[in-house]
């Protein structure tokens, strides 16, 4: 097996963020920003499904909206540009044109014309995270899309990262580190940024101060309100993240880490505290017109990706969080896809009572016109494991007739007794 070494490597990578673009600099070259908005997105493909792992893209020129000001900043930018060059050809970049366009549109709606100089990379990584390099390269991890449930929440995350960038927070950190003669370490950390990553602990290596996070939160609430989104959206994300951490802990019979100063959000104020501050901020701001959430638009943009997003989550072996997320997505009603995902989750845990429950969820998933074909497969496999041989084999036969070109056709046929 491939050893865990890669994680160790990767763990050192992420949690960049921050810095640059004073408004006057951006304003001095407005024609660039206005004329090249299409340059900002990472060359999407037209395919609606996840590409077959590798796709190489021609590096795109970065519009010179802002030029680094001094030696420190130029050094940071050089590092980041090299890392971004690698990032552009990463296997993990999601190149679906529709989703890339949508995210960029929401970003531009939220932060205004300066959006043109920012490159957003959607990364297929099943965790909740977003970050931004000092040169204007933003990463959004796919796990985030399962956790933001409307356009307003997505806008809040994008605005938060942009705020770090605009306030040049990473440059400040870089200077602090330099003052402590630790710049080599700092740059070495940045050197791995292109490798994306961060299963949590990384933020401990490079953390914005609480003041910086609070400032980014404040700016993001202002930005989304100004863009016409519900300013409460940001606080709702943290409500959900807190509840998810509780759910993980409950299923694993451990203590929730939501208010620990460690783990994925080590650099951020504890969730409960942050939630209260964000709510107070939102309450103090008067949104423009009727505050929007744009949930339908958000769902429509994600629809083609949804099956792979939930599949990535189910395979994380985090029963509590996944059960919470599925339930939370089903708040407006259970769809066949949600029932199927729940069946997959229970079947993966595989206790005897889980398998019975899974069969029930799959059965519900098979009802209705838009039932996922794999629901019959899941139903058959769950039933076979509960001892319902004939019924299980019938479901598997049903699956094979609906999916005659299945990649596990011969195996399923054997189990179905065909």
């Amino acid at each position, binding site marked *: 097996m*491939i050893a865990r070494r890669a994680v160790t490597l990767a763990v050192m990578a992420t949690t960049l963020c921050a810095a640059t673009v004073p408004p006057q600099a951006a304003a001095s070259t407005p024609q660039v920003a206005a004329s090249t908005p299409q340059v900002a997105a990472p060359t999407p493909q037209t395919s609606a499904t996840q590409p077959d792992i590798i796709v190489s893209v021609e590096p795109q020129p970065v519009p010179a909206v802002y030029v680094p000001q001094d030696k420190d900043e130029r050094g940071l930018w050089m590092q980041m540009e090299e890392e971004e060059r690698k990032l552009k050809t990463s*296997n993990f970049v999601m190149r679906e044109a529709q989703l890339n366009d949508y995210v960029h549109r929401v970003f531009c709606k939220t932060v205004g014309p300066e959006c043109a100089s920012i490159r957003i990379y959607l990364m297929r990584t099943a965790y909740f995270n977003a970050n931004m390099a000092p040169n204007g390269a933003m990463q959004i991890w796919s796990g985030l899309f399962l956790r933001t449930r409307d356009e307003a929440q997505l806008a809040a995350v994008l605005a938060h990262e942009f705020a770090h960038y605009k306030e040049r927070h990473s440059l400040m950190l870089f200077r602090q580190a330099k003052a402590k003669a630790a710049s080599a370490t700092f740059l070495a950390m940045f050197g791995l940024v292109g490798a994306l990553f961060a299963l949590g602990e990384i933020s401990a290596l490079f953390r914005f101060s609480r003041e910086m996070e609070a400032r980014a939160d404040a700016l993001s609430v202002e930005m989304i309100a100004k863009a016409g989104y519900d300013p409460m959206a940001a606080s709702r994300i943290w409500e959900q993240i807190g509840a998810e951490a509780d759910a993980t802990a409950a299923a694993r019979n451990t203590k929730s880490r939501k208010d620990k100063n460690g783990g994925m959000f080590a650099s951020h104020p504890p969730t409960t505290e942050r939630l209260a501050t964000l709510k107070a901020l939102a309450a103090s701001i008067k949104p423009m017109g009727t505050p929007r959430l744009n949930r339908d638009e958000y769902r429509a943009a994600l629809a083609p990706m949804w099956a792979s997003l939930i599949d990535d989550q189910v395979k994380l072996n985090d029963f509590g969080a996944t059960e919470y997320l599925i339930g939370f997505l089903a708040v407006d009603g259970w769809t066949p896809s949600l029932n199927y995902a729940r069946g997959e989750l229970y079947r993966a845990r595989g206790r005897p009572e889980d398998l019975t429950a899974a069969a029930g969820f799959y059965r519900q998933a098979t009802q209705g016109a838009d039932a996922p074909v794999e629901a019959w497969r899941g139903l058959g496999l769950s039933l076979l*494991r509960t001892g319902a041989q004939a019924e299980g084999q019938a479901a598997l036969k049903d699956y094979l007739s609906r999916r005659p070109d299945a990649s596990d056709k011969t*195996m*399923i046929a054997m189990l179905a007794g065909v």
Partner: protein
Amino acid sequence: MNHFKKLALGVAAIGLVTAPAIAGYKLMPAGVPVAVAKSGLTITPSIDWNRLGSRPGRNAESWTLDGLTLNDVTFYGGIPNNTTLFKDAKKKTEPLPRFSSTMLIPDIAQLFESSYRVSVGTSLMSIDAVKPATFAGSPGFHFSYSFVVQGEEVRRKGEATGAVIGGNLYMITYEAPVIHYYDASIELFHKLAETAVIRPVKK
């Protein structure tokens, strides 16, 4: 730095001073049957292989020809019920899924996929085809897979073959980079896997 490099450097450094018995690679000579993964799973290599000193798990062991990152054969020797495939290094925060004796073959493929996804932190892992096969004389399975480790970007392909015998999972996997190495050694792996027999373990 990967595991292999670390070990290689360790061997070089210590070798200068003294020559103690340390974890490193051990030659698995051609034609000599050898029990692997602390189990009755016995293999007879057709050419010389190298066994990695450190084990990926209590019931697992890895062999290579050119280094683990270039070709990696891992033996899983009778994984018992309610056990992980390999070492559950982050048990508290990212626990690995566990094998169950009641699992069907598609469940085992999914267990393998999920174990890899959690262990190396990747969403780019897929089981490409699953089919019935004979393993060490017992009815078993064969599946192929592909993956990319996050932060590394090398595309790898793999094959797994195995069976559940007496409620325990026996399995052999081979994986290597898609570019050159996978095809270069796949036949050698097939030859190796074909020699698998399960012998009674001496207590």
